[in-house]
C-alpha cells in the first residue's frame, strides 16, 4: 500500500556528494558539482522503498544553519518548517569534524536525523578510518557509511530512512551541554514552548533560538508560531531567562560565541573518538597539486593553459563532425525541397518550413552540437576534479581590487556553462551589494550559447581559414583572448559599479578548497551529454524553431520594395556602421534575444534570403557569404565583441528578475551590458578606421 509521500530533507556541507546521494536515491539526474552553491534550488525527487513513497528534497549545501546567506536561510527554513519527517545529513568522511558542526545543529532541531557518512572510498584512499558504530552510539542517531558515487550504502540509507519514519528506530540525539546558565534558561523556556512548535521540532532548540535572538522579547523568532494568547507565559519565562543571562554576564554577542564554541568543541570531541588517521599527512598529495595549480609563478599560466587545452580540443575535435553533420543535414534539406516540389506545396509553405524552420535547426545542430559534446565533458571534468575553487583562489585578489566578492569568480565560471545558471549561483554570495554586482556582470563571460559564434567567427575571419594545425591553435588563442577580455571587463565593470551605484567595501571572504577527487570519466560523459549538452541543445531547438519561422517570414514579407527584415536592417544600418557592424547583425542580435545560440543562424538566414543562395556546407562557404555582404576582419572583431558584451538572453533576464526581485536591477543589467558592448565596438571600429586599418 502506498500512502501519501513522506518528505525527507537532504542536508549537508557543500562538496560532500550530497547531490550524488540525491541522484542515487531518486534516479533523477541532477547535475552535481564539486563546489559551493551548486544546488541552488530545492530539487525534489521521489522514490519508492518497501511500498512507501518518499519525496526527497535536496537542500543547498551549507556549513551552518545560522542563516547568514540565502542558501543557509533556505536550508534552515525548510528543516525548521516541520515539513520533513526525516532529515538526512550527508557528510564527507575525509572532513568529518568540520561536517559534524552541521550534523549537531540539525540534531538540535529535530530528533529524526540520519547521518550519511559519504565518500568512504576517498577516506580509505587517504587511510582515514571512521568508526561508524561508535559514531552512531555517540550521536544517538542512525549512521550509514556510503560511497554514493559507486552506489555503496544507498540501500542501507533507504532502509534507515524507512525505519526511522515508520517509528521502528528511536533516536536519542546527543544533547550539547551549554553550561549551567544557558541550560537553566532552556529548562525555563523549553517546556513553555513545547506545545507551540511543530511535532517534528524540538522545543529545546526553539528555546535556544529564542534566547539567542531576543532574550525576553517573547516573539523574536520566526520559527515559533505563537498564538496570541500564549505569549504571556513565554514572556514571563523569557524575562526570567533574560535575568539569568545578565547575571551570568552573557550578552547577545558573548552568548552567540558561547553557543558556537560549545557546538564546535562537541564536534571536535566526537571526531577525536571515531577517527583514526593511519597517515599523518593524508592530504599531502592535494597540497602538492595545489602548490603547482595555485603557485605564484605557475598558477595563472597553468589556468590559461588548461582553458586553452579545453578550447583547442573543442575546436579541433568539433571541426570534422560539424562539417559531416552540416553535409548530412543539408542533403536532407535538398530532399525535403524535392518532396515539397513533388507534392506541389506553395512556395511560401516550403519557405517557412524548409528554408525557415528546418534550415535554422540544421544550423543550430551542426554548429552547436559537436563543440558542446566535447566542451561540456571537458569542463565537467575540471569541475569534478575540484579545480574551479582554485580558479577563484587564483583570481580573488583581482576581485578584491574590484571591490567584489571572491566567490564571484566561481559564479563567473558557472556562467561559462550558462549565464542563467551563473546568475542563480550568485546566491552563494551573502552580501547583497556584491551579489548584485556578480549578477549584473555575469553576462560578460560567454556562455556556451555564444562559444559557437565566437569559435566560428574566429576560425573563418581571424585565422583566415588557412587550415591545418595552425588554424585551430589560432582560433583557440582568439577564444581565450575573448575570455580573458570578458574577465577583465567583468572586473572593470564590477569596480565601476562598486564606486557608483553599488558603493561599498568588499565583505568577508572565505572559500573552501575542497579535496581533489578522482573523477569518474564514464559518469562525466553520460551526465554532461545528458544534462548539459542535450538540455542546452533542446532549449536552443525549441527557441530556434519559431525564431527560424519568424526570421524567414520577416525576410520574405515585403513592404514596398524591401522585406520587413531589410527595413529593420536599413533602419539600424547607420548605427550598426558606427559600431563596426551592419544593420543585419544588429537585427540578428535583437531577434536572437530569446537565446544567443540562434544569432548566427538568423544572420545567415537574413543574408541568404536577401542575397543569392549558396550551398552552405562548410565554414569557407560561410566566409564567402559574409564577405559578399561586406564583412571585413573589423566586422568580425566587432561582432565578436558585441557577442561578448550585449544584453543577456531572455532566460537570463527572467532569472535576474527572479533573483533580484527587481525590475530596476534587471534593466540595469540589460543597460550595463549593452552599453559596454556599444562603447567597446564604437571605440574599436572608429579607432581602426581612423588609423586606416579598415
Amino acid at each position, binding site marked *: 500500500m502506498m500512502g501519501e509521500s513522506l518528505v525527507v530533507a537532504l542536508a549537508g556541507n557543500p562538496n560532500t556528494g550530497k547531490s550524488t546521494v540525491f541522484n542515487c536515491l531518486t534516479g533523477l539526474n541532477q547535475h552535481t558539482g564539486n563546489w559551493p552553491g551548486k544546488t541552488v534550488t530545492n530539487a525534489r525527487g521521489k522514490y519508492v522503498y518497501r511500498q512507501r513513497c518518499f519525496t526527497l528534497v535536496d537542500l543547498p549545501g551549507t556549513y551552518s544553519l545560522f542563516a547568514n546567506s540565502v542558501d543557509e536561510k533556505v536550508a534552515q527554513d525548510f528543516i525548521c518548517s516541520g515539513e520533513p519527517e526525516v532529515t538526512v545529513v550527508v557528510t564527507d568522511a575525509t572532513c568529518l569534524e568540520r561536517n559534524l558542526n552541521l550534523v549537531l545543529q540539525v540534531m538540535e532541531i529535530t530528533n529524526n536525523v540520519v547521518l550519511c557518512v559519504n565518500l568512504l572510498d576517498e577516506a580509505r584512499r587517504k587511510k582515514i578510518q571512521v568508526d561508524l558504530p561508535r559514531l552512531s552510539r555517540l550521536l544517538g542517531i542512525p549512521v550509514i557509511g556510503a560511497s554514493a558515487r559507486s552506489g555503496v550504502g544507498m540501500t542501507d540509507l533507504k532502509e534507515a530512512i524507512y525505519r526511522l519514519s515508520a517509528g521502528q528506530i528511536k533516536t536519542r540525539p546527543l544533547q550539547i551541554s551549554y553550561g549551567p546558565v544557558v541550560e537553566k534558561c532552556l529548562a525555563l523556556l523549553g517546556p513553555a514552548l513545547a506545545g507551540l512548535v511543530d511535532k517534528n521540532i524540538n522545543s529545546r532548540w526553539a528555546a535556544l533560538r529564542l534566547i539567542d535572538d531576543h532574550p525576553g522579547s517573547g516573539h523574536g523568532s520566526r520559527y515559533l508560531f505563537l498564538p496570541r494568547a500564549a505569549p504571556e507565559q513565554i514572556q514571563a519565562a523569557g524575562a526570567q531567562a533574560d535575568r539569568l543571562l545578565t547575571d551570568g554576564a552573557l550578552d547577545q554577542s558573548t552568548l552567540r560565541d558561547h553557543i558556537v564554541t560549545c557546538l564546535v568543541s562537541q564536534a571536535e570531541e566526537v571526531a577525536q573518538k571515531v577517527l583514526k588517521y593511519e597517515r599523518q599527512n593524508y592530504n599531502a598529495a592535494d597540497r602538492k597539486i*595545489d602548490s603547482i595549480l595555485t*603557485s605564484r609563478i605557475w598558477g595563472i599560466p597553468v589556468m590559461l593553459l588548461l582553458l586553452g587545452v579545453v578550447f583547442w580540443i573543442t575546436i579541433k575535435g568539433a571541426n570534422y563532425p560539424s562539417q559531416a553533420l552540416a553535409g548530412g543535414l543539408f542533403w536532407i534539406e535538398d530532399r525535403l525541397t524535392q518532396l515539397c516540389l513533388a507534392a506541389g506545396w506553395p512556395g511560401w509553405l516550403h519557405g517557412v518550413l524548409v528554408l525557415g524552420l528546418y534550415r535554422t535547426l540544421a544550423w543550430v545542430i551542426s554548429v552547436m552540437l559537436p563543440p558542446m559534446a566535447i566542451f561540456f565533458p571537458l569542463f565537467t571534468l575540471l569541475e569534478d576534479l575540484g579545480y574551479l575553487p582554485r580558479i577563484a*583562489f587564483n583570481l*580573488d585578489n583581482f576581485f578584491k581590487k574590484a571591490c567584489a566578492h571572491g566567490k564571484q569568480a566561481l559564479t563567473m565560471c558557472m556562467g561559462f556553462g550558462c549565464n542563467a545558471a551563473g546568475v542563480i549561483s550568485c546566491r552563494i554570495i551573502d552580501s547583497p551589494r556584491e551579489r548584485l554586482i556578480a549578477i549584473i556582470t555575469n553576462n560578460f563571460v560567454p556562455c556556451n550559447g555564444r562559444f559557437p559564434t565566437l569559435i566560428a567567427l574566429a576560425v573563418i575571419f581571424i585565422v583566415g581559414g588557412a587550415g591545418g594545425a595552425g588554424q585551430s591553435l589560432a582560433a583557440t588563442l582568439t577564444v581565450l583572448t575573448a575570455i580573458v577580455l570578458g574577465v577583465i571587463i567583468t572586473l572593470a565593470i564590477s569596480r565601476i559599479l562598486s564606486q557608483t551605484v553599488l558603493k561599498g567595501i568588499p565583505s*568577508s571572504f572565505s572559500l573552501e*578548497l*575542497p579535496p581533489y577527487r578522482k573523477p569518474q570519466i564514464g559518469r562525466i560523459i553520460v551526465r554532461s551529454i545528458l544534462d548539459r549538452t542535450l538540455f542546452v541543445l533542446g532549449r536552443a531547438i525549441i527557441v530556434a524553431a519559431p525564431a527560424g519561422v519568424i526570421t524567414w517570414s520577416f525576410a520574405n514579407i515585403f513592404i514596398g520594395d524591401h522585406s520587413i527584415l531589410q527595413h529593420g536592417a536599413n533602419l539600424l544600418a547607420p548605427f550598426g556602421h558606427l559600431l563596426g557592424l551592419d544593420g543585419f547583425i544588429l537585427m540578428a542580435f535583437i531577434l536572437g534575444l530569446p537565446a544567443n545560440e540562434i544569432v548566427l543562424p538568423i544572420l545567415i538566414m537574413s543574408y541568404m534570403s536577401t542575397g543569392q543562395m549558396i550551398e552552405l556546407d562548410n565554414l569557407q562557404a560561410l566566409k564567402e557569404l559574409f564577405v559578399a555582404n561586406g564583412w571585413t576582419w573589423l566586422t568580425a572583431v566587432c561582432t565578436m565583441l558585441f557577442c561578448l558584451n550585449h544584453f543577456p538572453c531572455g532566460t537570463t533576464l527572467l532569472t535576474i528578475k527572479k533573483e533580484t526581485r527587481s525590475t530596476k536591477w534587471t534593466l540595469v543589467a540589460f543597460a550595463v551590458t549593452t552599453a559596454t558592448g556599444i562603447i567597446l565596438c564604437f571605440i574599436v571600429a572608429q579607432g581602426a578606421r581612423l588609423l586606416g586599418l579598415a
Partner: protein
Amino acid sequence: MNGLVPLHLLSPGTSGKVNRLIAEGNTRRRMLDLGLIRGTRVVALQKSPSGDPVAYEIRGAVIALRSEEASQILVEVLSG
C-alpha cells in the same frame, strides 16, 4: 616567539593556535562557523598567486581567507 600575531602574518608552513577573534558581527559568526574557536590549531598552507588570499588548514578543511579577515584572528605562533 610566543606573542600574539594576526593570522595573516603567519608564514606558509607554520602554524598557530587561535587566541581570540577581533572580528564582530557577521564576519565573526562566519569565523566561528569555520571552527575558529579559542585553541584551534591553524596551519598556513599557501599563498595565492598574488599573495592574497592565503589558504589555511582549519580542522581538516582547507579554507582561503583574505588578509582583511585573517588579520582579525589573533594566534599564538606554534613552533614546529
